[in-house]
């Protein structure tokens, strides 16, 4: 751990020299956005059969590119592992890190990152067989749980069981694939990982319909894009790319109706789409920055449904990720 810390400290020192404070200018001069992505997580970042990247995090990269260049295809996706994602951002290899990264205090401070927002509120959940007749995680008292070892998932699980004074029987495995297989063959009663992962894992078991995801979420995993410390302008650009998508959903602007909406007289819509005021310029972006995002990527709801929600095989319930006025906690400050 100490070694990792010192390597990262090194990264910060060298990162500061190589990654100039003017990321927006660098990106514009280069003509293409370098985006650190996951590359192997269904719904968040995964190349499809044509080799085209798709996912909720990938849409974040596309949105930034659409805002800066007016073209969501000007992105170079750099697949990063959990280990090298922060050094890649620090060294300037990528301009934005949108790789299913949990926003925590130590990452926000010690690693020199700035999280620009939360594009997915995740949390650890449980999957059980329906035949177990369990409706709540609190009833898992005597159950055995399959989990991947060495992860925060394993620690959260122990914390939750201790806090609720339940007896924990874990069966740990080196990879999530093995853990799931063990659960599917009946070695444990429950399987736990992040809720977004549970939905894609559920498709992989022999009979998906025999399994349910329990309602309890036992940890907070706010996932969001991150940029380097020390460049507030770029921080604003990435932050407002997400806010533009959220505001668009709130105002009912979709990729289909955005051109019509541009003629609207609603002042909120006019400000967002750049037909009134100079809010794009204030960000260092073109006037129609948000219009391009919505036209090419869609609003947040569209992106969610297409990648992880009802329009995708994952069928994840929006839950916490509903807008604030629909019962969720996704909330964006207004453009004005």
């Amino acid at each position, binding site marked *: 751990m100490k070694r990792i810390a010192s390597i990262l400290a*090194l*990264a910060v020192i*060298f*990162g500061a*020299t*190589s*990654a100039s404070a003017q990321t927006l200018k660098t990106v514009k001069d280069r003509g293409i956005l370098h985006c650190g992505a996951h*590359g*192997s*997580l*269904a*719904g968040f970042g*995964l*190349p*499809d*059969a*044509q*080799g*085209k*990247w798709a996912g909720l995090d990938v849409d974040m990269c596309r949105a930034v590119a659409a805002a800066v260049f007016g073209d969501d295809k000007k992105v*170079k*996706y*750099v*697949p*990063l*592992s959990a280990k*090298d994602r922060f*050094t*890649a951002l*620090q*060294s*300037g*290899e990528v301009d934005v890190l949108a790789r299913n990264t949990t926003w925590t205090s130590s990452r926000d401070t010690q690693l020199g990152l700035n999280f620009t927002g939360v594009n997915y509120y995740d949390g650890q959940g449980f999957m059980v067989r329906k035949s177990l007749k369990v409706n709540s995680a609190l009833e898992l008292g005597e159950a055995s749980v399959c989990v991947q070892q060495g992860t925060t998932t394993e620690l959260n699980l122990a914390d939750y069981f201790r806090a609720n004074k339940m007896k924990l029987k874990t069966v740990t495995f080196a990879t999530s*694939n093995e853990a799931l297989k063990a659960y*599917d063959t009946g070695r444990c009663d429950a399987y736990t990982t992040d809720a977004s992962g549970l939905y*894609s894992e559920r*498709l*992989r*078991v*022999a*009979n998906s*319909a025999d399994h349910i995801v329990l309602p309890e979420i036992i940890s907070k995993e706010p996932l969001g894009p991150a940029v380097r410390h020390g460049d507030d302008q770029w921080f604003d650009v990435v932050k407002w790319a997400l806010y533009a998508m959220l505001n668009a959903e709130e105002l009912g602007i979709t990729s289909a109706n955005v051109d019509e909406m541009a003629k609207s007289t609603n002042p909120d819509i006019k400000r967002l789409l750049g037909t009134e005021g100079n809010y794009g310029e204030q960000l260092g972006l073109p006037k129609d920055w948000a219009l391009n995002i919505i036209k090419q990527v869609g609003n947040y709801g569209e992106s969610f449904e297409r990648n992880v929600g009802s329009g*995708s*095989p*994952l069928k994840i319930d929006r839950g916490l990720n509903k807008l604030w006025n629909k019962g969720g906690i996704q909330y964006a400050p207004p453009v004005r």
Partner: protein
Amino acid sequence: MTMSEGDLAVAQIRFIRRDEIEAQPPPASLIGPLAWLRDNLLSSPFNIAMTVLIALLLAWIIPGLLNFLLIDAVWTGVDRDACREVVQHRVIGACWPFAWERLAYFTYGSYPIPERWRVDVFFAMLAVGVFWILWLKAPRRDLAAYYFFIALPVCSYILLHGFEAIGLPLVDTVLWGGVLVTIVVSAVGIVVSLPLGILLALGRRSDMPTVKLFSVLFIEFVRGVPLVTVLFMASVMLPLFVPEQYSPDKLLRALIGIAMFASAYMAEVVRAGLQAIPKGQFEGAMAVGLGYWQMMRLIVLPQALKITIPNIVNTYIGLFKDTTLVFIVGIFDLLHTIEVSRLDPKWATPVTSTTGYAVAGIFYLTFCYAMSRYARATEARLAKSERR
């Protein structure tokens, strides 16, 4: 001397056969499948035990493999439902429609679709080169080496990477993937490692102290570090020290790492061959007035390389499979594209991962077996001189 009556009588009844007797078939116990069985499989108690053991092993593996790959396999379908037991109500083996749909991705990775013909041309050019240089009866083999070592690398670079002046748009190596990357990485490793390995081996046996020291240090350092570490250093640490705009391409870094690695191993293989050449060969060459390079080129290396062919090919096969390690630094080689594809929720079933790995297994087995067969044939051809 005269013959008596009696002698004559004896001579008349003596039988002298004038034509050759027709060959009799060997006894039934020495020919036919039964004898073959007895000779090869059941000749001793130990042999019998081995035969039984192996037969049991095959009986244990082959039916399962055939069932999974062929008999229970699913051949058509559009999504995961085609490969799910609960939907199809039968035992499900390999899910081939998944592999079929992903075949283009396994081959080209994210290479832009309108530009994929360039990869096809590259594959074709490489195949021509390989046949030309390896097939002994091919015409104008003297030109094959120039084609393979000069024309092909240059053309491949222009084709795959792009050259805007002649209308080929640039394709960033981040988009390369699948079989393309596996072939490029192993071809570079294979082509670079032999000449570099020979130079390093000669350097290590050289009388010149600096050359010797450099060769020894290079070989021992590179052999002493795991390939994974070299790749990690190249992909994670290098960008920290070099400003972003000057840092070399990620694929290039991996290529250099792998080429260095293979060269160090190749150097030791070649050195073993040099070691085995009797001193008389060197002295004889010097006695007829050959210089160092002439001696090496005409007398020593042809003999040394001939006896190391099995080891050289062994190194090549190892290298070909080691290329899968580039996957940990985020390069999409064949195994990585399979690893990614098996996560596609559209095809998420319990058999998807196994099907993907079966594709990888078949691919690597085919290529490694082909390499090994060609080496066996070459060995046999070169060994003729010793059998005379």
